[in-house]
């Protein structure tokens, strides 16, 4: 749209950018001496783990700093011949939304909840004086249609909370592209979305990028996404740029050690050789589990709505096996896990734990059963009581079940070593540990009662990919050593492929398919499973893990 002086010159040039942090932070710079180029008509993926500075860097382009204590201290950001870091606030505002646009991670909070969608998109046009009322309205409808939203007229007058996550993100994209910017900066726009929705948004972004010849900077932590859409890749760690190059180069011939380790940590989508458990007895059997939630209704309020969180869910887990429950949000996988652990009450159905139906048991009768089945939780920050020491947290379970304080404490120290932490950790408080370490503590807590069955509810979803790899390996190691039976809930098909022996696929409260993981992945029978597998980003990408797994599979008997 706006021709530059030299068609070969990069669209955006970042040279030696440094962004400093306030003195109280744990390091001096959020971004340190980063140099990047964004060419015309290409997608540059900036990838890194949490704390890599990728988000701060992407926001620095438009001068969107979180506070006045986080400011650029060196470098240039050159766009169309001018240094954006030297631009006046008025000039920056001219460019924002107009020549350079940005979309964010959480569409629910990134949109104003009390204004209609149409009004928020219209605002961009109005601020930059792009036509009068009727002309703008027509343009908004055009934009909504261009992002494949059904019924643009209705979306126009809807409020954000009335739309789904995917629809909201499309609306944000429409808003960003309203004035046909040269550059689109996308800060983790699909991280908060389901995998199938993510696939749609990714293909939408790619399609729009090709059509308009934009330059796109796509920030993400997910290498699958990178493999799916990147033309060029930049890897960041601790605020520094570790590696930069074309997608083929970085993905298949990574130069830096960090890049190599990151790539190695991404689980392969092809399951490796799996163990056979058909000879083992069933230790956990779920039969016809039902749970529904009512909303609305009440006195004078009418009927209200009923949502089936679980409808006739049945599956079984054999001794020593790791069964994965896989699904997107709203599939009921978490509800199923909590019903099985008797944290919430199912409406009907059987839960057979080692031959005993625990569903109708009273809390008192349930207590001894709880020793046999323990749970590991998702949120490393919310799953540990911040006011208790690690030692207290781990030994509390046994103490409640009658073990003496002394032997509980001794066991705590053993467990800490088992999960790879120091014995000294017992005196410390949770906030002194990182996310990965906290998940280890949660695991130790669950193991303290020596359970036979472990129910793990998305235990690695909140962790960076390198930490995730470590925790998954630890889990597999402990599982093998102690002969644990594991029920593993996850939305990530790669993780399920690495860790699970067989999987159960859930969709809208129902089990749509189940079987050995290799079978289901290679020959999915149900349409939903097929869609789910097809939506995994970077399917075609053969990473080192894939190659290894494929090789192992072919040599297996």
């Amino acid at each position, binding site marked *: 749209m706006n021709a530059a002086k030299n068609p070969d010159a990069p669209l955006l040039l970042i040279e030696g950018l440094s962004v400093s942090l306030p003195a109280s932070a744990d390091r001096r710079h959020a971004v340190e001496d980063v140099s990047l180029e964004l060419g015309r008509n290409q997608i540059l993926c900036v990838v890194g783990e949490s704390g890599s500075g990728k988000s701060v860097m992407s926001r620095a382009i438009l001068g969107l700093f979180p506070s006045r204590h986080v400011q650029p201290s060196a470098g240039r950001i050159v766009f169309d011949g001018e240094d954006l870091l030297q631009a006046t606030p008025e000039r920056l505002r001219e460019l924002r939304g107009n020549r350079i646009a940005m979309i964010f991670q959480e569409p629910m909070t990134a949109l104003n909840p009390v204004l209609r969608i149409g009004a928020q998109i219209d605002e961009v046009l109005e601020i930059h004086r792009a036509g009068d009322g009727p002309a703008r309205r027509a343009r908004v409808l055009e934009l909504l249609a261009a992002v494949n939203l059904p019924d643009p007229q209705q979306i126009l007058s809807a409020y954000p909370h009335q739309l789904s996550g995917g629809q909201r993100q499309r609306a944000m994209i429409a808003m960003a592209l309203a004035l046909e910017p040269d550059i689109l900066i996308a800060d983790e726009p699909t991280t908060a979305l389901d995998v199938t929705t993510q696939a749609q948004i990714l293909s939408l972004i790619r399609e729009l990028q090709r059509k308009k010849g934009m330059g796109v900077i796509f920030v993400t932590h997910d290498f699958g996404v990178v493999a799916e859409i990147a033309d060029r890749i930049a890897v960041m760690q601790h605020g520094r740029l570790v590696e930069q190059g074309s997608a083929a180069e970085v993905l298949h011939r990574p130069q830096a050690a960090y890049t190599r380790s990151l790539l190695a940590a991404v689980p392969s989508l092809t399951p490796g050789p799996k163990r056979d458990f058909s000879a083992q007895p069933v230790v956990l059997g779920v039969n016809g589990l039902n749970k529904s939630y009512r909303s609305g209704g009440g006195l004078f309020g009418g009927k209200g709505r009923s949502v089936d969180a679980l409808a006739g869910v049945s599956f079984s887990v054999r001794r020593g096996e790791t069964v994965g429950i896989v699904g997107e949000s709203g599939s009921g996988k978490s509800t199923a896990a909590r019903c099985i652990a*008797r*944290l919430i009450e199912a409406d009907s159905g059987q839960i057979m734990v080692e031959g005993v139906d625990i569903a109708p048991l009273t809390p008192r009768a349930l*207590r001894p059963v709880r020793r046999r089945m323990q749970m590991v939780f*998702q949120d490393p920050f919310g799953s540990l009581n911040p006011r208790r020491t690690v030692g207290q947290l781990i030994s*509390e*379970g046994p103490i409640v079940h009658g073990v003496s304080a002394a032997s509980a404490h001794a066991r705590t120290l053993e467990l800490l070593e088992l999960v790879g932490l120091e014995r000294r950790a017992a005196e410390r408080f949770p906030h002194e540990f990182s996310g990965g370490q906290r998940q280890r503590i949660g695991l130790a807590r669950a193991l303290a009662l020596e359970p036979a069955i472990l129910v793990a509810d998305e235990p690695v979803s909140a962790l960076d990919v390198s930490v995730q790899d470590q925790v998954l390996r630890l889990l597999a190691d402990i599982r093998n050593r102690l002969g644990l039976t594991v029920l593993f809930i996850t939305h990530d098909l790669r993780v399920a492929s690495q860790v699970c022996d067989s999987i159960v696929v859930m969709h809208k409260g129902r089990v749509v398919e189940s079987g050995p993981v290799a079978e289901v992945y290679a020959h999915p029978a149900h349409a939903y499973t097929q869609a789910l597998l097809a939506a995994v980003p970077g399917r075609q990408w053969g990473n080192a893990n894939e190659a290894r797994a494929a090789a192992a599979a072919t040599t297996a008997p």
Partner: protein
Amino acid sequence: MNGGIQRFLRHRPAVGGLTLLLLVLLAAALAGVLYPGNPFAIVGQPFQPPLGEHVLGTDALGRDLAAGLLHGARTTLLVGVVATVIATVAGVTIGGLAGYFGGRLDNLLMRFTELFQTIPFFLFAILLVAVLGASIHSVIFAIAVVSWPPMARLVRGEFMAMRNREFVQACVSLGMGHTRIIVLHILPNTLSSIIVTGSVMVATAILIESGLSFLGLSDANTMSWGFIIGSGRTVLRTAWWICAVPGVAILLTVMAINLVGDGLNDALNPRLRSL
């Protein structure tokens, strides 16, 4: 704990408030020493202005204003603290049970709480004291009865949020009973909110008490700041200090408590300083 104390001390207004509060406490403690005897006793000519024979002057009947002020400090603090403690215990119990157990118990308890919040609280306090007779016990009771709903709501909200936190679910899955979970796990995490709300409640209690005694609803045997103000109403034109001075005392005390409450809030709930 240490960090909390340090954070509090860095908050200058809070430290100022604490100092003021300590002065008030001192005054209350020294009342019996500096002005022994009955503050209702007549010591001199009525309507003497301050800085004369009596430090703060005398009121309409010739009572020593300074004596009244110091003895009144006792009443004020006593009523404020005791009423707050009762209201806090009631509020924490009701709110905690409602938030933790949810369901029908929650519905019932919340409708009960809402009822109390619909009633205009000051009118209700007046009514209670009028019905039960004006004594220090009825005043404390009345203030406690109208003060507990906000605490109940707060505690209910916190307990409900905690109930759904994964560490509480972990406690359930480890086989812990309700009592242990509530007392050892949820309550310690809620304590800071309760303390902060409670401190502000003392301030409100003091304002209610002074309002009641201004209207004549105070124990006839205990001196109270509001009572002094009420007794000086008719001579506002000539001896306005009778109304002014006790009011300043109330203002400073309540302000001190509010500042301390602010400081406690910052100390116990550290948040990132915004921008």
